[in-house]
């Protein structure tokens, strides 16, 4: 990817040594302690053409989520539920290493893990988004564009999606003479809870929250845990090649609950 691969490898190794040394003293290269998140900003309602939208900045990571609401057929086996469809694209603007094209496995994992948190927590009460059971339901698209990537895309995207859904206004559709009619009116979406993900990476024996790209380049393993408003865990994804000990996982689940509550109240402040 880079112009001179060999020198990059050497730089990476030097940087990793520097990072390990800092971590052994309880410090991160950007000065944060292990459990601190970077500066976190949300702007909502930036896309007028979307039913809901949010831009999240987590350090230098920047994500936009947009909600579009249409009608369509329900999924097979879920005839009495609205359809929720999520996608995420890491735009080629995001870093020098992204190539334009269909989403790669990382982007697909990203949208699926964020989707899992929303779906499993039943944040949207899809049972309320049905027009004709088994035939016509609301189809909710949540699309995410990663504008700039500097690590922890998972959490940034999760917060953008939750903020966009929370502040969205769904169009009200009605059935007249078996035809779908847009009434021109809007309603708040049927929200039941707020799922919020917390991500950490393990580098050696240190577990760091909200990793930067540089830290992700040095990680041995990654873990993402999503909790909903009552503190229950609704989704987990362990990523990358290294393992975690049971002890580390149990400790992290406690951190994810406390930290998740903190992030949730930050997102709530928006409303």
């Amino acid at each position, binding site marked *: 990817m880079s112009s001179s691969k060999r020198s990059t490898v050497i730089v990476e190794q030097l940087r990793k040594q520097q990072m390990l040394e800092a971590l052994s003293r309880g410090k991160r290269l950007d000065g944060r302690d292990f459990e601190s998140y970077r500066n976190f900003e949300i702007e909502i309602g930036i896309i007028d053409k979307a039913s809901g939208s949010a831009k999240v900045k987590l350090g230098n990571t920047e994500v936009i989520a947009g909600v579009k609401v249409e009608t369509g057929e329900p999924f097979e086996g879920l005839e009495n539920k609205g359809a929720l469809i999520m996608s995420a694209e890491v735009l*080629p603007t995001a870093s020098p290493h992204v190539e334009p094209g*269909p989403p790669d496995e990382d982007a697909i994992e990203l949208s699926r893990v964020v989707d899992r948190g929303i779906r499993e927590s039943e944040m949207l009460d899809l049972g309320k988004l049905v027009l004709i059971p088994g035939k016509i339901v609301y189809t909710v698209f949540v*699309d995410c564009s990663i*504008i700039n990537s500097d690590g922890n895309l998972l959490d940034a995207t999760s917060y953008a999606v939750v903020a966009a859904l929370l502040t969205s206004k769904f169009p009200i559709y009605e059935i007249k003479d078996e035809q779908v009619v847009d009434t021109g009116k809007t309603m708040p979406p049927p929200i039941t809870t707020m799922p919020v993900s917390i991500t950490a990476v393990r580098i050696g024996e240190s577990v760091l929250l909200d990793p930067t790209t540089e830290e992700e380049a040095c990680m041995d393993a990654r873990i993402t845990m999503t909790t909903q408003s009552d503190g229950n865990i609704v989704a987990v994804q362990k990523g990358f090649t290294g393992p975690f000990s049971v002890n580390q996982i149990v400790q992290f689940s406690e951190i994810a609950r406390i930290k998740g509550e903190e992030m949730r109240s930050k997102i709530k402040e928006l409303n």
Partner: protein
Amino acid sequence: MKELALMDENGKRSDGRGIDELRSIKITVGVVKNADGSAYIEFGKNKIIVAVYGPREVHPKHMALPDRCVLRCRYHMSPFSTDTRKNPAPSRREVEISKVMRESLEPSLILSDYPRAVIDVFVEVLQADGGSRCAGINAASVALADAGINMRDLVSACAAGRLSDNIVLDINDLEDKEGDADMPVAYLPNLEQVTLLQLDGKLTTAQFSECLEKAISGCKSVYEIQKEALMKKYFGNEMELKEEA
């Protein structure tokens, strides 16, 4: 009936503008941290982010040219940018716009200064409102300048069109769909060269000349806003100092 909707008896257009009035334009330089150059433009309701990467090594290697730099351009619309959701896969329309955009930018750049390299221009439309290719070109040219690419001139773009008997500046979404002609133009303001010219719709030769002239006058106004945006990033404090003095 059409002209009633698009133009009232006082010569005001559907969005309240006069015949020769541009939509509001705002350009911010240096908005994408990882990019070598970037710009964000709001052009009416268009919201577009452009990031430039390069000059850098070409992949795949066989694309490299021995005597000059390759310019690549991707125009892409986010799924939430339009009234009905857009499929994220590139459409034929996006492929064509990517091509004409690249061709409109290329004459402004001194590509022979970077042989065997590539410059990538990524244009992401976050919200579309008619004239997104012109808005994209304006932001792209500023982003290329921000990336420090050697250039002969900026590229400024603006459309003009016809609403029944009136030739008007800067066609919006509704006028594009309901109007009688839409002509996007990109222009090198100092070299006085046209680098993009397209037309959808019918014009007499007299109307054609009037339309072209009007579009170019729009490009010249846009040019001032592009310069201002670049000045603000690179000489921001000095400009403020001058004002104080």
